[in-house]
């Protein structure tokens, strides 16, 4: 079964290579990332699969928003679909690159069997993570307990990316007046069904964040689910009553708290060195707090990203 899925995976990536019209590119990219998300799941990693599924949805939304501006003018559509030059000439131009890639591919394949990964770390982590960091989800124990600095820097990069996007988006009227409408016409069906779905999304996002250290899930996936709630909300009430500026400040504020909490935790030895016999409760409290903070931060970050893209698209 996984072999068949991976063949489909390669076929959809080939489809992206041979497609020129941009609309179809995005749909093939969406198909591709749906398949990768299932492939991760079948390979035994539900956490990564959840993050990939949510990121796939966000990526296709961001792509379509910046494409839509490009395609609203008529001449771009005709120009794109016109066969610029004959297929033969295009193929001739592509041959050197093709030869290079196929050559490299077989070269690397020839050397692959030599690699024999050692599983010492895996056994180490799996046996000791229950006592050292607490919780039952090894992945959360690693990125919150043993390797908490990676998570710190990852959160920092997310803050930087959001700041870059908000200040770099090119439009004179970047300061969208709060309360102004966008032109997405929503029907009653949208309002009704989203009213049923939205509470489920928020409840499920909170569930993922809170017991991220027990079942599959965690700060990132929960935050992404919450961000999906804001996207649904945009569909129905498309006014900007939440001003993007103070959500941005909120996000940086939460990031500062994350740094403080990790510093305290490491100094108090909650993450990796406190013997579990004395304080098992303290460990899971630390995990829940960290997951909660990361979840809120990721939700605010993607909220700002999404609303900033909507303002680019609007005018």
């Amino acid at each position, binding site marked *: 079964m996984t072999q068949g899925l991976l063949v489909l995976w390669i076929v959809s990536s080939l489809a992206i290579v041979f497609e020129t019209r*941009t609309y179809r590119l995005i749909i093939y990219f969406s198909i591709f990332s749906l398949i990768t998300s299932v492939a991760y799941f079948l390979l*035994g990693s539900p956490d990564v699969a959840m993050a990939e599924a949510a990121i796939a949805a966000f990526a296709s939304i*961001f*792509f379509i928003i910046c494409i839509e501006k*490009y395609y609203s003018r008529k001449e771009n559509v005709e120009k794109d679909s016109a066969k610029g030059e004959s297929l033969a000439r295009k193929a001739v131009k592509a041959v050197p690159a093709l030869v290079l890639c196929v050559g490299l591919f077989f070269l690397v394949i020839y050397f692959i069997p030599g690699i024999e990964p050692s599983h010492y770390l*895996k056994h180490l*982590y*799996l046996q000791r*993570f229950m006592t050292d960091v607490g919780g039952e989800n090894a992945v959360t124990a690693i*990125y919150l307990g043993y390797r908490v600095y990676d998570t710190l820097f990852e959160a920092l990069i997310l803050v930087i990316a959001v700041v870059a996007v908000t200040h770099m988006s090119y439009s004179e009227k970047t300061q969208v007046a709060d309360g102004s409408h966008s032109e997405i016409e929503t029907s009653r069906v949208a309002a009704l069904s989203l009213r049923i779905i939205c509470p489920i999304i928020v409840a499920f996002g909170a569930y993922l964040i809170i017991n991220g250290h027990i079942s599959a899930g965690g700060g990132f996936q929960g935050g992404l689910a919450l961000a999906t709630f804001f996207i649904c909300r945009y569909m129905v009430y498309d006014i900007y009553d939440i001003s993007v500026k103070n959500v941005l400040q909120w996000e940086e504020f939460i990031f500062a708290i994350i740094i403080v909490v990790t510093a305290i935790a490491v100094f108090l030895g909650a993450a990796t060195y406190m013997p579990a016999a004395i304080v098992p409760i303290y460990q899971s409290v630390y995990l829940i707090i960290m997951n909660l903070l990361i979840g809120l931060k990721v939700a605010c970050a993607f909220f700002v990203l999404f609303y900033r893209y909507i303002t680019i698209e609007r005018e």
Partner: protein
Amino acid sequence: MGIFNTENLEIFSLALFFISFFGIITSKNMIKSIIFVMLIQTAVIMFWLKLGREDTATPIPPIIYDPALLDYMERIADPLPQALTLTAIIIGFSVVAVIITMFNALYRLHGTADWKKLEEVEGD
């Protein structure tokens, strides 16, 4: 039940790596090269997840809800690559978000989404 045997996963992920590498080289449309940037990252992650596996039987997610699971040690998926992949995916996506903003700005200034025309317009 050999449903999920994953012997030649690394061949698939390598194939995807070189397909998207080829795509980045030959893509005339800017948006297409952005999409290929994300594809290359997925290929690397798939290869990285494959390295953590000892045998090709059905992998069990690394959530040990009862210690009895620990004696299937070789079948449990390795948690370390997954933890690092999580940060890699989110960082990759924030990079792509910034790239898309740049594309928007570039498109606003020059009105073309094509590498060739861009060079003519900017004349650098």
